């Protein structure tokens, strides 16, 4: 009489039969496997991958150089304008000084007016001369001569001829000889403005500072920078495995440090590249005491045996013991970024970076026992996106400090040959010094 098998009986029957089954293995199988087993002295990652990494690095550097060259070429015209303005400004100053000395109305030609209006003094309303500047007029035509009262007026700036006229008229009203050294001190003689703007040394310095272009670290075309960014790192998983990993993984402290070379294209844009070391970290914690994790065998695949932890395969014998693993992955990155100065010293940056995995370090503990684990299935080469926004604070004419929150994300999965995507990302604060 036939018996209707229950599910359990059927499962036990089939399992018993299949588990005791041994297949006959053709001898040719071994030969094919043997030919592909890595040799003992083989590098940790294959030579062709290393070559690919080097080639990619070269391409990235060449791309950066090409972009820089193009940008330099495009900015040549602007550079000439700046030089011309500086030269013309000096000429203008000398011309005005001469006119003052001769007590005559300066005759300003159109080219000087144009030049004067293109330099960074957009709202000139009055001109006056401080005593230091005047002393320098007597000695040299090359030193800074003019102190200007700059007002943020709504009206259009007056042309330089009107400004010059103001100077002359006020001088005539005061009826003081300009260069009468036998009379009262020069500073009193040159009270061209009825209410002098410069009333104290401090104000004088401030006005001079406002008018005369100050040396700024950003004036340099080529600049070096050193940065360090403490960060938190984690990873984005696709929907399939996110459920499991979110239960046991948490973000961890990470960092990146870089040496940067940047080129200032114009007053707003600069490009930069760097050599960058990134440490990406992640923590995996599976506590046996956690009721959910202990009672649900869904996690057995990860906690009870082995799973694709961030650093690959880890074997765990006893699923009833706490498992803690911290993973550090080290990447050598070459970023290529563009910076846009939004307002004053505030800027935004965006760019791509190429990363090469250069090292791994894991600490795994099962209860009180240390576990051996190592990297596996990790993608060696990866491309990423970098976004940051921050502020550059000038310390002096050479150095400035950068403070910028930044976000980095890998555009490719950090794991290779596994059936889910895992994109690492870091959120940090980039702090640096630029020269």
């Amino acid at each position: 009489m036939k018996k209707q098998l229950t599910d359990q009986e059927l499962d036990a029957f089939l399992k018993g039969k299949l588990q005791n089954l041994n297949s006959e293995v053709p001898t040719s199988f071994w030969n094919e496997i043997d030919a592909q087993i890595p040799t003992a002295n083989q590098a940790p990652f294959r030579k062709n991958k290393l070559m690919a990494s080097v080639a990619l690095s070269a391409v990235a550097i060449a791309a950066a150089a090409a972009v820089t060259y193009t940008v330099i070429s495009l900015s040549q015209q602007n550079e000439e304008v700046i030089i011309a303005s500086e030269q013309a400004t000096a000429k203008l100053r000398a011309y005005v000084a001469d006119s003052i000395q001769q007590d005559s109305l300066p005759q300003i030609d159109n080219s000087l007016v144009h030049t004067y209006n293109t330099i960074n003094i957009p709202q000139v309303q009055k001109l006056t001369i401080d005593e230091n500047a005047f002393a320098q007029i007597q000695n040299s035509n090359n030193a800074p001569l003019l102190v200007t009262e700059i007002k943020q007026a709504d009206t259009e700036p007056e042309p330089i001829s009107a400004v010059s006229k103001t100077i002359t008229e006020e001088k005539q009203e005061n009826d003081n000889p300009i260069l009468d050294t036998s009379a009262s001190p020069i500073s009193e003689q040159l009270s061209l403005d009825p209410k002098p703007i410069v009333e104290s040394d401090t104000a004088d310095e401030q006005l001079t500072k406002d008018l005369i272009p100050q040396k700024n670290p950003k004036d340099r075309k080529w600049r070096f920078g050193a940065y360090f960014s403490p960060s938190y790192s984690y990873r984005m998983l696709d929907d399939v495995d996110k459920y499991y990993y979110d239960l046991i993984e948490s973000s961890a402290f990470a960092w990146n440090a870089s040496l940067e070379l940047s080129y200032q294209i114009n007053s707003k844009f600069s490009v930069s590249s760097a050599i960058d070391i990134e440490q990406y970290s992640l923590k995996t914690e599976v506590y046996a005491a956690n009721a959910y994790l202990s009672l649900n065998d869904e996690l057995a695949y990860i906690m009870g045996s082995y799973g694709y932890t961030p650093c690959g395969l880890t074997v765990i014998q006893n699923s009833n013991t706490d498992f803690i693993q911290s993973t550090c992955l080290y990447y050598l990155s070459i970023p290529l970024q563009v910076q846009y100065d939004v307002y004053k010293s505030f800027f935004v940056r965006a760019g791509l970076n190429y990363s090469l995995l250069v090292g791994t370090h894991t600490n795994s503990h099962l209860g009180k026992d240390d576990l051996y684990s190592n990297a596996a299935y990790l993608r060696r080469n990866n491309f990423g996106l970098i976004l940051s926004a921050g502020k550059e604070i000038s310390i002096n004419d050479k150095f400035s400090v950068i403070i910028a929150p930044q976000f980095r994300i890998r555009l490719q999965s950090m794991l290779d040959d596994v059936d889910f995507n895992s994109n690492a990302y870091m959120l940090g604060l980039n702090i640096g010094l630029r020269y």
Partner: protein
Amino acid sequence: MRELIEGCIKKERSSCKQLYDKFSAKMLTICRIYTRNSEDARDVFQTGFIRIFENIAQLKEPDALEWWMKRIFINESILLYKKNARYLFDETMISDTSDKREVGDKMDGEAVLQEVQKLPMRMRQVFCMYVLDGFSHKEIAEKLGISEGTSKSNLHDARNVLRKRVSNLYSISETTLQE
């Protein structure tokens, strides 16, 4: 066993061959159970062993070796069909053309394997993962990219098909089951 593993870590050919000889038959069976045909089984078998030799340094506990290896082959077979997803959709259930055996024939593993191999790929994967390797429905769903309900439904269908085939082929008595 520890010495064997250490030899494999050092990529000593003799140790690798020894490990291969020890487990190859059993692992090929797993590959055959989980794959669609002998060619796929061969691919998974070879890829799996290469993967094992590349990563055996990660194995801390020698006692877990067989289990670890088995998981690698299962994962590789799942991965194979994920990369070639079309297999999962164009396959129709193979009709039951098995010769009926006489009552009392001794049932062997090969015959059971043949019956299991006749199941459609998805149904076979779910059945093997659940019954043979102890995966839960949730885990199967995650690994295969299907819903839990689909996993349960596939298991139910697989059991019904196999129950019918086994019952038709053999007269299964309680005595047989106890063997």
